[in-house]
């Protein structure tokens, strides 16, 4: 068990960058901030690769099983003798894998932003926020304590809030950032209560201990948590479901997904980092982290499965109708995460049945790369066209060949066409689904088809369709790279191109990683093989879908309109995202504010405070009413005097004793 303490530097470096740029950035590093950020992150990335090498190939394995290694653990806040918040570093397959993903994608984004954000007024601030996010995300994945997860969870949320609202004087951006934060906050409430439940019955907040206690069916903790029940469900179910609620919030699962599309108001690289590759998969990571406990409770897993599957399908359908390219990507992200979720949901803990777990992680891994590639590609497109709308694009393939190529590859990857990355991971998921649950399998298959359809709809609309009209400038509100209009046309700066190329390589390559050797639910290597016969169906479906969308969108024609007409009401419903946003608006604007907030505010002024006023006023009224007592007539005074005498005498001579 060798020393992994140096991993501490991986999150600390971005933190240092954040502090440095946050405090002095706008004064001293207005220009150099990007370099500083990228450099420090490069270091972290290298470190994490070193860690990965050491863990996976040198001393992670003890007789064939990958160990959970606690590299560091420090009691941060003691609640009671055995309940405390610890800060620490856990080293196990998924955390190391996530290290790789987060650092490398983040590095790519840093690199890309060098060109993309060049000349921004708050350049330094931007990099400070990026570093803050990276730090929080790394802290999250390294957590040893469920409360540590929660803390970094919140931090991730707030840095996402800051980055979405980066263009702070743009109302839509502000609204979007608010929405993102509040929705996820609402989900986190569930997470928090879930933690409280787990902590109370498990008697600890330490993830390792918690798993240990709650996975042995006869441990007192397990008995108590399963015996205690509320509204018919056992406390275990409640706890896990609530925790999953938190995950669903971050990972934009239905019905908590509404913030993700709006979050695209942020700078595109940010979307690539946070809302494609890293933060949004935190939910998946959380479930995976607690998977042994989840696997003890069928109900919770079922919920995970169906929420995931439904989100995947819903998102895919909506994605087919959107015209804002970033929104399309956002929905595809949601759909892919749905994939990962239900893959976890149908999985068992350990052995062959643990395939789903491994598949899910695998998909997470590959998805991170091709999805960020897609976003960055979209970024450079937007950077060129100054618009997010498909109608402003078309025929760009000649103007930006590199972008075009990389985008195409990414699309193939996500569509699951061999030999690109997406194929392998998706294949595993489908296999797992096929074995566990046919219904889910069907949904997955259909979603896969839809995926390739809308991805290529996107692709063709951007790069083919009309002829090169890209010179058209639309400097309207959508433009989020307005800082530099003229100087950079074509495909943006070298760094941007470089980034695209690197990621393209990944999108092609990462599929060949023998993933199942490293990451499985129980740490034992798992033999998987691509069964060609099995693969026929999904691949074929995808290709058909691609051809369909080609016929619709490759050239301008009316087929698509006919199709739209065919679906009619369903299409417009999907286009309106099935009115989920409207529902939320109705609940907040029509119920919470007018029916709860205002009455309370009113009651506070008029009833509670009014009561105090009433006291004062009655006192004054009484004093005004009895002023006649002081009539000014000395004879009345004498009379009252005598009255007093009589009263006292009667009281104390006759009544008192």
């Amino acid at each position, binding site marked *: 068990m060798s020393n992994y303490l140096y991993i501490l530097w991986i999150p600390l470096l971005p933190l240092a960058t954040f502090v440095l740029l946050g405090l002095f950035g706008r004064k001293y590093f207005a220009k150099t901030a990007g370099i500083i950020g990228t450099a420090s992150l490069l270091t972290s990335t290298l470190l994490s690769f070193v860690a990965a090498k050491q863990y996976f190939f040198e001393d992670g394995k003890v007789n064939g099983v990958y160990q959970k290694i606690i590299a560091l653990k420090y009691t941060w806040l003691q609640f009671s003798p055995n309940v405390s918040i610890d800060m620490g570093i856990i080293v196990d397959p998924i955390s190391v894998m996530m290290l790789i993903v987060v650092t490398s994608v983040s590095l790519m984004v840093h690199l890309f932003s060098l060109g993309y954000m060049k000349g921004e007024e708050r350049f330094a601030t931007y990099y400070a926020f990026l570093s803050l996010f990276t730090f929080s995300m790394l802290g999250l994945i390294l957590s040893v304590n469920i409360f540590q997860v929660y803390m970094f969870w919140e931090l991730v949320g707030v840095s996402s809030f800051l980055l979405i609202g980066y263009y*702070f004087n743009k109302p839509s951006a502000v609204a979007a950032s608010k929405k993102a934060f509040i929705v996820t906050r609402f989900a986190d409430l569930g997470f*928090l209560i879930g933690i409280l439940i787990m902590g109370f019955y498990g008697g600890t907040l330490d993830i390792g201990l918690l798993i240990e206690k709650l996975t042995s069916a006869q441990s007192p903790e397990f008995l108590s948590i399963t015996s205690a029940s509320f509204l018919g469900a056992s406390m275990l179910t409640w706890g896990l479901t609530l925790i999953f609620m938190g995950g669903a919030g971050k990972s934009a699962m239905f019905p908590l997904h509404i913030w993700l599309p709006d979050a695209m108001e942020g700078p595109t690289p940010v979307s690539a980092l946070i809302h494609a590759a890293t933060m949004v998969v935190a939910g998946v990571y959380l479930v995976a982290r607690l998977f042994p406990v989840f696997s003890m409770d069928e109900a919770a897993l079922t919920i995970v499965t169906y929420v995931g599957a439904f989100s995947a399908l819903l998102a895919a359908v909506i994605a087919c109708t959107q015209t804002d390219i970033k929104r399309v990507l956002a929905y595809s992200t949601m759909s892919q995460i749905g994939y990962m979720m239900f893959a976890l949901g149908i999985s068992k803990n350990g052995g062959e049945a643990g395939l789903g777990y491994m598949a899910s992680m695998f998909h997470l891994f590959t998805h991170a790369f091709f999805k960020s590639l897609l976003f960055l590609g979209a970024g450079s497109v937007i950077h060129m066209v100054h618009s997010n709308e498909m109608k402003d694009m078309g025929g760009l393939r000649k103007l930006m060949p590199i972008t075009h190529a990389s985008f195409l590859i990414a699309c193939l990857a996500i569509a699951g066409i061999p030999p690109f990355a997406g194929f392998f991971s998706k294949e595993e998921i489908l296999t797992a689904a096929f074995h566990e649950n046919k219904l889910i399998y069907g949904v997955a298959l259909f979603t896969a088809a839809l995926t390739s359809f809308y991805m290529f709809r996107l692709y063709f609309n951007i790069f083919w369709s009309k002829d090169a009209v890209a010179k058209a400038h639309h400097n309207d509100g959508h433009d989020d790279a307005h800082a530099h209009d003229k100087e950079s046309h074509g495909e943006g700066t070298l760094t941007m191109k470089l980034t695209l190329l690197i990621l393209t390589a990944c999108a092609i390559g990462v599929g060949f990683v023998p993933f199942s050797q490293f990451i499985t639910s129980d740490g034992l290597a798992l033999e998987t093989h691509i069964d060609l016969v099995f693969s026929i169906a999904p691949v074929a479906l995808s290709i058909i879908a691609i051809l369909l969308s080609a016929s619709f969108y490759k050239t301008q024609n009316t087929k698509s309109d006919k199709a739209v007409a065919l679906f009619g009401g369903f299409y417009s419903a999907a286009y309106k995202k099935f009115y989920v946003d409207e529902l939320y608006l109705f609940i907040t604007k029509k119920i919470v504010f007018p029916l709860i*907030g205002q009455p309370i505010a009113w009651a506070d002024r008029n009833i509670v405070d009014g009561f105090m006023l009433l006291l004062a006023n009655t006192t004054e009224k009484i004093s005004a009413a009895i002023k006649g007592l002081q009539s000014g007539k000395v004879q009345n005074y004498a009379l009252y005097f005598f009255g007093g005498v009589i009263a006292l005498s009667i009281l104390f001579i006759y009544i008192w004793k």
Partner: protein
Amino acid sequence: MNLSLLILLPLLTALLILLSKNLAQIRVIGLAGSLAQLGAAGWLLKLFMDQRAAGNTATYLFETNTVWFKALNINYHIGIDGIALAMILLSALVVVAGILVSWTMEKLSKEYFFLLVLLSMGAYGFFISLDLFTLFFFLEVAVIPKFLLIGIWGSGKKENSAMKLALMLMAGSALVFVGLMGIYYNTHSFDMVQIGQMGISLGVQKFFFPFLFLGFGIFAALFPFHTWVPDGHASAPTAASMFLAGISMKLGGYGCLRMAALMPDAAHSYSWIIILLATIAIIYGAFATMMQTDLKYINAYSSISHCGFVILGIGMLNKTSINGAVIQMVSHGLMTALFFAAIGMIYSRTHTRMVAQLGGLLKVMPFISTVFVIAGLCSLGLPGFSGFVAEMTVFMGAWQNPDGVYRIATVISAASIVVTAVYILRATGKTIMGPISDEHALLGDATWNEKFAAGLLIVGILIIGLAPFLINQLIMPATDFLMINIDKAITLK
């Protein structure tokens, strides 16, 4: 170290202020005095820690007990435990910040600073006194300066607010007084330590606890008696609001805590009422805040909600929750002070506190906006800031009570963090972000004194938020001692 220094320093400062001539002198003296105060508090902390480290396990350190009114067995008995010390540090910080933000107070500056210092003296005296009479004395010392500060230097319908505040607080202290009489004539002593040792008979506790708890509760904005908070805070000048929310409301919470420890049986048997009121205060305050349009009102109502956590923690009557309550007091003190400071800075520049009339301030006053955002994030309980630590501790403590009703109360209170997020983000989104209006486009950023003040408070917030084990280590022994009595009472049931 003789604790009386904590009272004498402000007194001296006040006198010097009376003697000094112009604003320049006054504020320098005020600042020097408050800094000396802060230094004294810090030094006290060091000594305290040394003592503890040296293995001095006495409940109260630096005790001095001198007879005051011999005939009535009233003693000037002072001493501090961790909780009191935490409060003292909080007060010292807030006082310095308050003096700094009122650096350019032209109107009747002498009286203004004099009253500020007097108010702080009341607070210090309150926190160090172990004799109930002395406690009561200092409690009331702190009331009248508030009245004058709000009434003279305030804004809006200041007279009414000042009057309302003074009268409600006085009503509170009247209740406290009755309770004290009850204790006095049943134990023939005002000395908290003595009384704690000899204990109070159950009947007496049951009868007088409501008086005392309600009395102090009014100071801590307990639910139906909180209406002085919004008006008072909103009308008060910046520094006064900071003192009010940062220090004065803590007097109430601290008093409630002490009383609960003094009569644990009663506290235990009334705990469900306390918790009920606290929960109402938390959620009700949060929703009321959501509807406010004036920045100061927003913060004032959120104070009601946050102080609810203090009461909740006390009502839950277990170690963790009481720890949480104490941390929440400190945290809320710093945070609200910071918030009011930020609002004051904005108001002094834009001359409006209406959310609707502000916007995009981040462009022209990045520092102030950052302060504002930090205060906001702290108040919605973001990890890394003190608010998170406090609230989580309270929740953890509250959750330890497996009774269903308490669970529901906890969940409801926890739900308030969402509402908090809503109103904080609305305020931030409207004032700090968004497009800026033209007449604000040329305003300047914070001056050195404002930066210093804000920095001080932020440092405090961060220390608690990033290294909670420090404050925990400070207050833990104290709560342990409080719990001895309380646990005895609970196990009796």
